[in-house]
């Protein structure tokens, strides 16, 4: 028998993609700042674990109000987001509408809140608008995607002389209603997370008390707040069934803390002076503009803040992408019913719930306490949160797969049947999350990690609103560019429903 040598068996498409993710991460890892600075993380860790074991639910003074406000912002934000976003979905194909939405969506809730904070102060309007605007833009896009992906055949069979409203409601809206409801439910969960995170910049939600507790080292109080928050998200479907939504909306309006009257002079001042570059303030005609000072102002921001910020943001995001891949694979295996008996998968599901419920911002905050300020806490936080979100969706998919009618061990079954089936979708989800990872990465700046958000936050605290605004623009443009680029590069199945 002739000896067969070197049968050519090249790497598959998905193997290549996976390798690229890791190769990129490894190449840029030396440039990422991942030093552990904390002097003794174990003392802090043991105190935290101790706090987790002894949660103190009564330590927070305004706990009930905090929960109510967290829910209120989320409900009103999602409701207004729907009111604005759903009609936009109908005209989303217009390039102006879609690019405006992409821009609004690219700015994180926290940055919106920082902006509105200057105008409305700590009023509920700030919190609600900060959620409403990006959510409306997201609803517009996702609903539009859902509608164009739906079947055309009901429309064909409707009498063409019927008016457009009747044809559209019966032939399209009725058809996609369950998908839109499911997506809205999912976004409500996201809104609760965002609402809590707004507490970190001073809004009276759970995040505010969480931050205070953790910063002061009151870990018993902090862990109690975390547990409450996770329970709140894990039980949404019990306390907020679709039927009660209208009731909750009314309650939210009634229990909203008083809205202080808006000082219109503040608003005018903000628009006409504060957000203008120093070279443009107090001028009346175009001739007075000092162009040289304007351009030097802009280049300074560009070179010393925007570009370093963008580089740090992308570095962090790419490393976090690989780490997310790692977490996804492991956590999915942990919760798969194809590997473990039922009681163990419940434990895995609980891990997934905790991982995806805690906002990455809060996770990063906790790891920052442990490991000191570097990119490492942010990478870990992003990997845990996003990995758990993707694994949650992947488990949902893999649990519907019927096992092979063949004698093989569970482990072989998992590797030869389940993983090959779900892997393409899993990778697609990871890439969709990349846009979200970049968006979140910018926010970690507020925790002191030198991404774009760091420069934005410092400019806000130094009352240089014009600089902050320019950097927010850069952040938005970066997100839009990545969105376009990833759509061009990867011809993945169009499915934007998992973006959050």
């Amino acid at each position: 028998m002739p000896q067969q040598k070197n049968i050519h068996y090249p790497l598959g498409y998905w193997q290549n993609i996976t390798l690229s993710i890791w190769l990129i991460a490894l190449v840029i890892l030396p440039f990422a700042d991942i030093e552990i600075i904390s002097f003794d993380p174990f003392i802090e860790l043991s105190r935290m674990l101790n706090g987790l074991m002894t949660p103190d639910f009564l330590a927070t003074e305004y706990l009930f109000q905090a929960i109510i406000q967290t829910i209120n912002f989320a409900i009103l934000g999602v409701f207004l987001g729907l009111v604005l976003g759903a009609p936009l979905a109908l005209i989303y194909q217009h390039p102006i509408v879609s690019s405006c939405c992409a821009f609004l969506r690219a700015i994180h809730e926290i940055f919106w809140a920082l902006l509105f904070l200057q105008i409305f102060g700590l009023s509920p309007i700030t919190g609600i608008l900060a959620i409403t605007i990006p959510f409306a833009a997201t609803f517009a896009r996702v609903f539009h995607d859902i509608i164009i992906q739906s079947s055309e055949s009901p429309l064909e069979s409707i009498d063409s002389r019927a008016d457009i409203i009747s044809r559209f409601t019966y032939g399209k809206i009725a058809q996609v209603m369950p998908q839109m409801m499911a997506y809205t439910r999912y976004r409500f969960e996201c809104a609760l997370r965002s609402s809590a995170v707004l507490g970190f910049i001073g809004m009276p939600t759970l995040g505010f008390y969480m931050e205070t507790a953790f910063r002061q080292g009151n870990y018993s109080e902090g862990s109690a707040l975390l547990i409450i928050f996770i329970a709140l998200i894990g039980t949404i479907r019990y306390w907020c069934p679709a039927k009660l939504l209208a009731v909750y909306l009314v309650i939210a309006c009634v229990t909203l803390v008083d809205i202080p009257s808006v000082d219109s002079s503040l608003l005018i001042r903000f628009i006409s002076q504060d957000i203008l570059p120093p070279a443009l303030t107090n001028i009346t005609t175009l001739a007075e503009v000092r162009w040289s000072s304007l351009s030097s102002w802009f280049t300074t921001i560009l070179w010393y803040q925007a570009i370093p910020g963008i580089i740090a943001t992308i570095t962090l995001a790419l490393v976090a992408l690989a780490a997310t891949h790692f977490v996804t694979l492991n956590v999915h295996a942990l919760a798969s019913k194809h590997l473990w008996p039922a009681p163990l998968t419940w434990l895995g599901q609980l891990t997934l719930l905790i991982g995806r419920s805690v906002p990455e911002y809060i996770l990063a905050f906790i790891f920052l306490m442990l490991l000191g300020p570097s990119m490492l806490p942010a990478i870990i936080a992003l990997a845990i949160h996003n990995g758990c979100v993707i694994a949650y969706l992947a488990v949902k998919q893999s649990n519907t797969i019927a096992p092979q009618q063949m004698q093989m061990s569970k482990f072989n079954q998992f590797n030869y049947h389940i993983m090959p089936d779900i892997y393409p979708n899993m990778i697609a989800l990871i890439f969709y999350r990349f846009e979200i990872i970049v968006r979140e990465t910018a926010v970690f700046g507020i925790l002191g990690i030198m991404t774009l958000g760091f420069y934005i936050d410092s400019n806000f605290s130094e009352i240089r609103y014009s600089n902050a605004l320019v950097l927010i623009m850069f952040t938005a443009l970066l997100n839009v560019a990545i969105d376009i680029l990833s759509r061009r590069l990867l011809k993945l199945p169009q499915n934007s429903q998992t973006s959050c």
Partner: protein
Amino acid sequence: MITIDNLNLHYDKTAGYNTDKKETSTQVIFDLSLTINEGEKVAIIGPSGAGKSSLLHHIYKKLQASAALCSQRQGLVDNLSIYHNIFMGALARHHWLFNLVNLIRPFEQELTNVAALCQQLELEQPLIKKVDKLSGGQRQRVTLARALYQQKSLFIGDEPFSALDPLMASRLLEIILKRHKTVIMVMHDRELAMSAFDRVIALDKGHLVIDSQQQSIDQQKITALYQTSAVA
């Protein structure tokens, strides 16, 4: 009512519908000429792939304003109830506000009409049931009911009984023929086509091969048509 002169149709495989573009498509109808008069009951038969559906959809496009289509692509909205799917046939008769309110709270009169129609079509299911819970035959009857509820004078059907048993098919066909002045229908059951229609048209590989009145149908020719095609 309709006269077709030297019709050539192309089917775009990638797009999945009839098209005039020649590059990516295959021709399905060749130089077909045909006249159908008002009041006629015409059956179109032929082996599969003969171009029956393409011809039928072409006719529907020309006569859209006065015709009710019962297509093989049922176009039912899975998320809506039997009642709402059938009511969709009447959308053009009402103001959009009426239609919207009816979507939330069905009107008594419409409910009665739809219930009567369902009874006639032997569809004994609660009207509130969602159509995705129905069997293939039941879905086909909902599609049929929706076409009937359009209350047009011309009925255009593409194998509307393919999932039903022959006895029920002939009972339902009788209802359709009685309720419409003109009927043009692709039939998979050629016995029923020959016995119930005034005129039978047969297609083979995109060509019109038989066009005869009921009295003068050449049984042998039709049988031969199916046999040769089956061999090929």
